[in-house]
């Protein structure tokens, strides 16, 4: 088996953890992004042949370690775009541009669209669809979209493309992207037909690995904050953590984090391969999100009044996780799809 991290992977985790610890909560500006590119981390999700250094595991490690900060949500759309490009256009000039931090890209798969889905009109030669609450999309200059039989890249300036940004539930910028009969003549078709299927699978596995890794990073941080708080906070003349009722709650949170870690690893392994069995990936996203939400609710409860305070990680974590749960392609949506498909 290959489940224990290699020495390189452990070192990568440590250096990302140090990097994010030095910049607590802070927004990611252009200089930080260049620094990250300089460290090579944008190449974590793709192989050496296209100038990267990793695959699903390495990508998941970076996201997990950045998971409690604003960085994760900016990395994910770029990783997703790179994974698609690596499959369908390894020579594409976007790859080095994204990895060098010169171009901000946003990868898209059909589940990220609203229920109407993404449609290609093959007679009129147009593509339509609506994506909501996208992260890292307000400044993206390229959208890389993979559909069951077509992969394409488009820029926001094209006819029929509209973007609207607003403040999201997680207190960060979110963007709705509407493609209204966008002429295929104005987009770059990266690949068409049978071969795209593998890219879609790869993208789906990559997205599952990314979301579960973020859940893992976030839940782990919330758990650790709560553990530390309960060791230090005293009521009734002793640390709250000395009450058995509280200990059991922490033990359950710990178990939840362990399981999220497992689901994240399973997804990352899937993202390393050719792309895999779709229902299990959906279940990994659902399972990781549910468990992380449990951890976030418990973190608030066990902090008492402090847990209700804005500007602390507990409330922010709950808001971020609710967003991951409720976005198209998130846990809630996938759960309904699984039930609908088996009905």
């Amino acid at each position, binding site marked *: 088996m290959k489940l224990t991290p290699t020495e390189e992977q452990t070192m990568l985790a440590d250096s990302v953890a140090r990097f994010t610890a030095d910049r607590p909560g802070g927004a990611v500006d252009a200089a930080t992004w260049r620094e990250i590119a300089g460290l090579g981390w944008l190449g974590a999700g793709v192989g050496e042949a296209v100038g990267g250094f990793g695959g699903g595991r390495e990508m998941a490690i970076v996201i997990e370690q950045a998971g409690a900060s604003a960085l994760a949500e900016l990395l994910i759309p770029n990783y997703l775009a790179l994974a698609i490009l690596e499959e369908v256009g390894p020579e594409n000039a976007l790859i080095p541009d994204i990895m060098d931090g010169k171009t901000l890209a946003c990868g898209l798969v059909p589940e990220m669209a609203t229920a109407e889905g993404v449609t290609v009109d093959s007679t009129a030669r147009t593509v339509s669809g609506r994506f*909501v609450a996208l992260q890292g999309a307000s400044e993206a200059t390229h959208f890389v979209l993979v559909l069951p039989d077509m992969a394409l890249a488009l820029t926001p300036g094209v006819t029929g493309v509209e973007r609207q940004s607003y403040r*999201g539930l997680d207190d960060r910028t979110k963007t709705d992207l509407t493609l209204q009969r966008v002429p295929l003549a104005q987009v770059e078709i990266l690949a068409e037909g049978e071969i795209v299927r593998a890219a879609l699978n790869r993208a789906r596995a990559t997205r599952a690995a990314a979301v579960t890794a973020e859940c893992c990073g976030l839940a782990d941080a919330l758990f650790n904050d709560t553990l530390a708080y309960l060791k230090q906070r005293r009521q*009734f003349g002793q640390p709250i953590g000395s009450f058995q*009722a509280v200990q059991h709650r922490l033990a359950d949170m710990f178990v939840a984090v362990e399981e999220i870690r497992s689901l994240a690893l399973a997804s990352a392994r899937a993202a390393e391969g050719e792309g895999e069995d779709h229902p299990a990936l959906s279940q990994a996203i659902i399972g990781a999100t549910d468990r992380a939400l449990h951890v976030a609710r418990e973190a608030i409860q066990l902090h008492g009044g402090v*847990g*209700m305070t804005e500007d602390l990680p507990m409330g922010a974590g709950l808001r971020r996780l609710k967003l991951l749960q409720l976005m198209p392609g998130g846990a809630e949506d996938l759960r309904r799809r699984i039930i609908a498909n088996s009905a």
Partner: protein
Amino acid sequence: MDAGWSQEDMTFREQVRSFTRDNLPADIRGKVMTGRPLGRDDHMRWQDILAAKGWIAGFWPEEYGGCDWTASQSYIFQEETSRAGAPWLLPFGVNYVGPVIYTYGTEAQKARHLPGIVSNEVFWCQGYSEPNAGSDLARLSTRADRDGDDYIVNGSKIWTSMAHWADWIFALVRTDSAAKPQTGISFLLIDLTSPGVTVKPIRSIEGAHHLNQVFFDDVRVPVENRIGEENAGWTYAKFLLGHERVLSAEIGKAKRMLDRLRQIAGERGLDSDPFHLDRLSRLETDVLALEWTTLRMLDAVMGGAAPGVEASVLKLRGSTVIQSIAEYTADCLGPDALKFDPEFLERTVNDPPSELARNMGVVSEMLFQRAPTIWGGSNEIQRNIIAKHALGLG
């Protein structure tokens, strides 16, 4: 299912229902139904309407301006008004300090403070919790040192709901630091305009401002503002907590929230989705069980039983049931829950209701509803009480 209400109770229910229908201002109802935050004015306007009707302190004895309502009338009043979309009747004056004053206060204190509560002119807040004394309230450290006819108060209270709107605070303070924690506490009424009082806002996770920290820096409080005996404040505080907990299962509100949940699910075409129906039915069952648990306890109280561990049962389930409804309602919004901007909500609070504001209101309520399992004796503390006092464990 019929609980066997008396004819008087049924008549009273009709009265409350039609009064609320005719008198609750539409804009206030609109805000409540959409979960948008209420301002001080919204609360005060509705409470003025109740005060004019003589219903603000209905359960108080008539001699102090109440209507001598029975426990079942209080229950009916709360159920009917909240179901209809009335704001939460702020409990600090009416339910908390008022009964303490008419039970333990001097004639002068009653004459000075009760009329302002009944007329809704004086806004009270509750100063119990401190940074280092929450669940273990008895270890509070805000101190009051005697200086002639005054106490000099120093320290701070935290999580003080609506202190920034309040005129007065009732506070537990330490008057004897040598005694055992519970025996060195006194109960003071403090005018918030006194020199040395500072109120600082704390924003909560839904981005709204209702919480505060209140600082006391050499604040002079006349000794005549002490309730009852010096160092006996814990007794009065516990009496008050008893009142706080009886109210904690808000059946009318739970039903109102279920109405909204059904409406939102309907809008989204979920009303025939088996997955949704399963979840909805579980929540409806929770409310049914809570309602009948409340009714059983109400009947026992009407028969003269003192509310004991039942209050903990109601607090525990009242808070978690409403919390679950609030969260699942947001879940039903799906991606429409993802636009959330507390500043927008605040800025547009007096605009006519829109779907966007309603959706944000639902999210705001989901976040805020994490609080009831923490406040008023946290649910962990309630479980400890049940285990210890009802089950004889430990």
